[in-house]
């Protein structure tokens, strides 16, 4: 997957989790949590969805890697390069 494709997947997953998510003014380098008003249960859903789709195991101590859209892409790029 390319970086752009990974980005789309993340946004798609968030949109599925939260029907009210508004990406219009999303800053890729600022925390998703604050911008989209996500809580820790929502974050768990992103992790679970990645596991379901790509059999990706993300250990709990690596959750901070998913803080911003850019950090998500950086973190997932090597893991999803063959997906």
């Amino acid at each position: 997957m390319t970086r752009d494709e990974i980005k789309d997947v993340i946004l798609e997953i968030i949109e599925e989790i939260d029907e009210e998510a508004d990406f219009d003014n999303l800053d890729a380098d600022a925390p998703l949590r604050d911008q989209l008003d996500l809580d820790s249960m929502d974050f768990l859903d992103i992790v679970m969805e990645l596991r379901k789709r790509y059999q990706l195991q993300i250990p709990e101590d690596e959750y901070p890697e998913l803080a911003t859209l850019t950090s998500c892409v950086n973190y997932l790029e090597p893991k999803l390069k063959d997906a």
Partner: protein
Amino acid sequence: MADYQLLIIGCGLSGIAAGIRAARFGVKTLIVEQHALPGGLNSYYYRQGRFFETGLHAMTNFASPGDKRAPLNLLFRQLKLSRKTFKANQQNHSLVQFPSALLRFSNDPALLEEEIAQTFPEAIDRFRVLKKNICEYDSFSVKPWKSAKAFLKQHLENELLEHMLLLPTMIYGNAEEDDMDLGQFTIMFRAIFQEGFFRPEGTIKDFLQLLLQQFEQFGGEIWYKKPVEGIEHDHNRVHRLRFADGSTVSADHIVSTVGLPETIRLTGWQTDMQQYVGQMSFMETLSVLRSDTTVSSRERETIIFYSHSDSFHYRRPTALFEPQWGVICFPDNFQGLPVKTEPQVRVTNAANYQHWCVMSESEYEEQKKRCAQEAVVSAGKIIGPYEQDIIFQDSFTPLTIERFTRKKGGAIYGSPVKLATGATPWENLYIAGTDQGYLGIVGSMLSGVSMVNAHVL
């Protein structure tokens, strides 16, 4: 390999929520239910061609779709249900009525505050401080038991007002007698007085269908008429469920929503069961009234919490049941609902399980009828007599509740001692629902969700 990754005992609201949550992420899940219908306490039935709901008066925790942090909306996100397309009918308004005072409240918290300012001017500043402290109280971290009564007394110094605020919060969710844990009280206070009452559009049957459809769409399975008779286990782990018909099914994880006492019985768990048996049970009398009745149309109130005395004792009555205080619910009186031609009135009063369970069948029927009459007379003192308008009547006793929920002693709010972690002596058996600690329909569903999040996913 086990037959299923997850087995859930009980197709009530907490079980279904747990099921949806697990199935959503591909966990192979089976719910087993002893009855032919889903819903547990909150189910439905037909009599003489009429449709009736069982447990539901109203759902608490109303929240508009935009409010992301609200428990109701959090629940919908967790279950991947659309909150935007879900239609909720909010209450008109409700009352707390004692002989010396009456308070109105609605889903706008300002109404209760105005009413208290008017009726208890000396206490309004104190009430505002109380409300602020409740809002700031962290109800979800595990804390030692604290007295809600002492908290109220310390804040309000007004016995009547204290009782009037305790009646709704206790009667809609307190498993303990005499007092209530402060954490539980703050949850109920917010659920009732800050967020408020609503009904899902349609009936409980439609709501259950919405949930079951979601569960099945994610690949979940349900077996009805499968009463569980035992949970087989070794030292550390549970392995399978044994049914009344002798068949078994195995699983990696089991979630039990039948309450602690029943789970103790099913596993042979060596512990003091008695501390987990709730003493509070209720009798409910529902009446369908003639179309020309004047009773329900007065102010179209949704729910009336009443006491015929200025104080009330929240405990198991010594007699069969206690008509001195209770709840009157008009299930048709919600915003946006058409005025029903044959309106319903439901009256709920505390009842004593011990007395009900030792009666012969004929005595049971006779006492049920007598208590129903007394309940109607008691409620009639609040809303005006309506005995003459009744065209159909039915009642549920603590035995009915026990039969449909497996909650020992008919304790609808379960054990007075909650099991916050849901963990049992077996590493892959968990408790969800009322005995885990969240209350009400939204609460018990969130319990199912959070137990699956914590232990299964």
